[in-house]
């Protein structure tokens, strides 16, 4: 990094803190910013600050939101009696991308992991229980990831919510569309057979 003027050095250092960005990529990005118009640079800087100032967690579902509640919770066309539980906002975005879901969500912001000290109090589980207690809920779909942490979380949620008389469902597991059985791992294949359906 030697040879760069101090402000450029500082920018490279900041950029290289992003995930997946090494010093060389950071230097390339810094040079790009250097060549950009002042207007473009200002828009970039302001959009970064905007995200920090305006985005917070939705007070209902803990999705990322601009303001008190998120777009999904504010949408009156969504079915509020079906709640889909996800680990992270990324999963929510992915499910929304399918265009198949009309219900609402609940974002836990993680999954149970006793070895990492992540228990129910680090997740939005209390809030979920309060939420289902105060509303008419017909179905809760557990869409945590099919990892040990995600499955453990699913088992806990089923235990907590079933005794409150709520219908619980778990997303199906199987071979990806366009996939090939011979390249599919044993665990997934076992689940495929377990969750087969009549045709």
């Amino acid at each position: 990094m030697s040879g760069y003027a101090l402000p450029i050095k500082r920018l490279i250092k900041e950029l290289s803190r992003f995930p997946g960005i090494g010093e060389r990529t950071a230097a390339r990005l810094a040079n790009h910013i250097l060549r950009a118009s002042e207007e473009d640079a200002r828009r970039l800087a302001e959009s970064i600050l905007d995200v920090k100032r305006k985005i917070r967690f939705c007070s209902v579902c803990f999705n990322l939101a601009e303001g008190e509640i998120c777009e999904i919770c504010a949408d009156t066309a969504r079915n509020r009696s079906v709640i889909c539980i996800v680990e992270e906002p990324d999963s929510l975005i992915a499910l929304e991308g399918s265009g198949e879901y009309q219900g609402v969500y609940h974002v836990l912001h993680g999954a149970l992991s006793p070895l990492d000290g992540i228990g129910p109090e680090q997740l939005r589980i209390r809030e979920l229980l309060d939420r289902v207690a105060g509303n008419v809920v017909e179905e809760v779909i557990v869409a945590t990831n099919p990892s040990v942490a995600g499955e453990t979380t699913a088992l806990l949620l089923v235990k907590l919510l079933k005794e409150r008389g709520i219908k619980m469902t778990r997303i199906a597991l199987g071979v990806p569309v366009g996939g090939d059985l011979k390249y599919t791992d044993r665990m997934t294949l076992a689940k495929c057979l377990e969750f087969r359906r009549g045709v």
Partner: protein
Amino acid sequence: MNARTQYRTEAIVLRLLDYGESDLIVTFCTAEFGKLRGIAKGARRSRKRFANALEPFSRLQILFSRRRPESLALIESCDVLSHFPGIRANLEKTFTASYLIDLTDQFTPDDKNNEGLFQLLNDFLRLLEGGPATEGLLRFFEIRLLKLSGYDPVLDHCLVCKTPLGNEKAYHFNSGDGGLICTACRPDSPDALPVSLGTIRMLLMGREMEIDRLGRLFLSEQSAEESRRLLAHFIRHLLGRELKSVHVLNEIRRLGI
């Protein structure tokens, strides 16, 4: 530059840590290499390469390479020997397995032959896979792990007067001294936990008995309570802190589960 040497070994996954954009740093328990740390390149980006094998308490056959014993191993491939599906499908068993893993991680030496501890963990995961998650299973794992790792508490005589176990009905266990003290020797020590003769006998049996017969040992409510307090106290004393998995389990219990 030293050449990389390749090794193949059986391993149980203890811990996973996200590293960079797409890698995982994995801690394994192995028989030959003790606690082994390795990097699995691209494990988070491509599920194909490691075929969902890198998950807590999975038992694997791994192929790894490294330049020196103290350097981070490069995990080249792994095959699943057991996912322990019976454990993973059950909340109580998953928490029990997490605790066994956490404890093993704390007591396993780095890069040192470790046949005993590896075997112990493997045996208890197998018991848990095939049977219920009982209080006894946890206690017998603890007492055997302490013995194998050189922290065996003295349970067969009084530390002070050396009188063998059996003369009295009740004893105290002192974590600081790592053993029993009879009532005659120090009746009112503030740190010592009371423990009955029956509980001590049960722990001694659970420590020595063949693994596959352990399922037949049942702890009375009093023995379960006494041995839980005794071993939890002693382990906390040895480690100097509470294990994360214990903390999480307490949170779960507060939810009424």
